[in-house]
């Protein structure tokens, strides 16, 4: 303390205090600021599940337990949830796989969250929906040929309790690892094929900039809507989720059917978004989250001008006869 007391009248003391206060504020904010929801990539992209892979009865149980309280046992909707009979399986897949459904608060817009069901449960649910709830082919189907979520090692990991001996378990772990690697490679190949299958940047860019960017932003960073709603950022969205959002129109979003934007045109659009997102920032490692001019102005003032003024203070700092 003595050290501080002795220096509190130093000409630079005021600046030091300001800098410390700013640092403290920054650290404090970082501590209380909400951490973003990280969607866990969970399963492998797949073709349409064959009937023997799904369990419709299980799907009914899931529906009755998690969905029916708001949407009704027959999916016809209720006070808290809309009629599901015409929305189509793409909407179900989108809402559940992005973690927006099931929702605890039917009035509020849901942010993206980790999915609460397993991929198998979702497949069962969709099978049940198609069989018993959906009005005769209405709404869009799940676009199974568009790549979905990257496989995740946890889905392959064996349970220790299933094995008697440590060796057997380790063996299984190794096997699972190999399975996971293979699945990942498959997925990557499928993903790359889908993205690079699009070759008309002009079309993808035009479609995205004229129909999507006004809400989701040029970089897919999202934007404000009215009444406190917002268009979500789409960086974590898989190609399939983007596709499903377009055909099902979640929330306030209008629908872009396969009639107005054909599947291969959607592929161009999705490819444009994902390629742009993966594009390295040629201008520098700090891309300011691609927010643009507001962030640039802020940095110009609080970093640029402040550093230059700090240099000016150094240059002109008082020199006493005995320093």
């Amino acid at each position, binding site marked *: 303390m003595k050290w501080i007391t002795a220096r509190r009248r130093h000409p630079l003391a005021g600046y030091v205090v300001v800098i410390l206060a700013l640092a403290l504020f920054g650290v404090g904010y970082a501590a209380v600021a909400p951490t973003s929801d990280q969607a866990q990539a969970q399963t492998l992209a797949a073709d349409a599940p064959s009937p023997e892979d799904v369990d419709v009865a299980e799907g009914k149980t899931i529906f009755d337990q998690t969905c029916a309280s708001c949407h009704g046992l027959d999916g016809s909707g209720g006070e808290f949830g809309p009629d599901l009979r015409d929305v189509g399986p793409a909407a179900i897949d989108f809402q559940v796989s992005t973690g927006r459904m099931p929702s605890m608060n039917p009035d509020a817009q849901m942010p993206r969250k980790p999915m609460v069901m397993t991929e198998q449960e979702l497949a069962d649910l969709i099978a049940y929906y198609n069989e018993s709830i959906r009005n005769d082919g209405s709404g869009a189907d799940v676009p199974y040929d568009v790549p979905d979520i990257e496989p995740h090692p946890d889905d392959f990991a064996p349970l220790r309790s299933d094995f008697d001996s440590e060796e057997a378990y380790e063996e299984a772990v190794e096997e699972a690892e190999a399975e996971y690697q293979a699945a990942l490679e498959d997925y990557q190949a499928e993903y790359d094929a889908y993205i690079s299958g699009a070759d008309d940047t002009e079309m993808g860019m035009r479609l995205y*900039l004229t129909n999507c960017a006004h809400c989701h932003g*040029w970089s897919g960073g999202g934007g404000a809507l009215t009444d406190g709603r917002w268009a979500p950022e789409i960086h974590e969205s898989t190609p399939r989720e983007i596709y499903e959002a377009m055909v099902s129109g979640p929330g306030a979003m209008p629908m872009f059917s396969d009639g107005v934007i054909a599947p291969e045109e959607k592929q161009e659009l999705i490819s444009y978004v994902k390629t742009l997102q993966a594009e390295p920032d040629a201008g*520098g490692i700090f891309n300011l989250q691609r927010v643009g*001019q507001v962030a640039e*102005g802020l*940095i*110009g003032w609080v970093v640029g*001008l402040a550093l230059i003024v700090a240099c000016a203070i150094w*240059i*002109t700092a008082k020199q006493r006869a005995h320093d």
Partner: protein
Amino acid sequence: MSKTTQAPKALRGVGNFIDDRFHAAKMGEKNLRKVFPNHWSFMLGEIALYSFIILLLTGVFLTLWFKPSMIEVVYDGPYERLNGVVMSEAYASTLHIDFAVRGGFLVRQIHHWAALIFVASLVVHMLRVFFTGAFRKPREINWLIGVAIFTLAMLEGLFGYSLPDDLPSGMGVRILQGVMLALPLVGTYISMFLFGGEFPGEDIITRLYMLHVLAIPALLLGLIVAHFMILWHQKHTQYPGPGKTDKTVVGTPMFPGFAVKAGGFFFFTFAVIAGLSAFVQINPIHLFGPFTPTSITSGLQPDWYMGFMEGSLRIFPNWFDFQIFGYAVPIGVLVPGLVIPGIVFGGLGAWPFLEQWITGDKRAHNVADRPRNAPVRTGVGAAGITFYGLLWLAGSNDILSETFSISLYVTTYIFRVLVIVGPFVAYFVAKRICLGLQRRDRESLEHGYESGIIQQLPSGEFIEVHKRNSEETTEVLASKPEITSTALTEPAADDKGVRNPESRKAKGRIRRALAEWYTKDNVSFEGVEPHTGHHLHHSEEAVKEHASH
């Protein structure tokens, strides 16, 4: 320091050569001896000067490749992601600078960062001059030149931002054209002539390019040189202190001390801008995509210095729009587009003359005011900053709405109220703070400063020892000028009871009222003698004395 080194022969040769032709020795020495006050806030203007030099240098480099043409081409170039995309040649040539010219990306980013810093430093420099009253006689003309530089710098920035013809930049031009169209009677004509037809046409970038690289920089350069020559002739103002008077300036002479410092400062300024450009991406036009008039992005913003215009366009309501004989007068565009910048720049330009009219002060001032010693001016400045700052923030209300999860419309309502209330609050708060600081100054002048040492007197009383201020501090504290106005000292009526004709007229009455407002709140230092206060017996000597009794 014993002996001065002889000038090298070569240097003497050159010196003589010049002197033979210009008689330069005397003038040269005088200028080398020019005195610069030593305070960092006097270097803010230099940041602007240096950024401008950086802008000129990097701008010339960029013109070597940039093609100001709106001819549409199908891109086929080094930046593979955009191959096959239809874009203007302007955009394509900017991609060329970024991806085919080594260092091109860096220079373009330096140019953009330097532009942001240029205008920012103009603002802080201007605020320094305002709050210290350095605009007062004899420096009013230089203040006006400064306002003109600020205005032109904004336009220069806006036009430069528009040149690469990327998505946000084209929208800036679109908004400019929309504001132009709103002008009664002449709007459509001005727009047609400027754009060579309808929006966007094929001429606007070529024309903005001419304005951006030739006309406005030439004007700016001329004004900056004039600004500088006037400064050189009139010399800097200075903060109060020992020996610093309206007649004498104290500081470091130009040569050698200040020249080296200023040179170093140029390199610092350049280094910070280069550092930002190396690591922080700015205006990534290759990611935005080319401009089309049919597309738009959310979160669209101009560069920061146009933010206040954007904000006023956003929050001004449409309640006052009207039609006259079937002709539209969109007040909701005209006021934010023309009247508000008029208030900002007109107000800046008018203030020195308004203040002089109010106070009737015709003296030349070379010693700067401490902001606290002119509370009304400081309050007005704070109100101005608040007004400008709120409009600027309102220009990013969508980002604020999204970041802080506030309803978009609510942000608009909040800003509508704040823009009116905020300046008044800021005025009163700033003025109160000034008056509080004045009281503290008076206290400190009379009693010395609180040393932080607590002593117990033999009587058991605890006191905090006050120490004498240094002579410099005393001088600074005692320098507080009395704020007066001739409007108040002129008698309202002469001794025969005839009222002063000046004060009877409306103008005179307004002036009297303003003078009242400008002068009434002030802490008087009249009769205050340094270190005479009753607390002075708490000073160290007094304590010792006390103890010895």
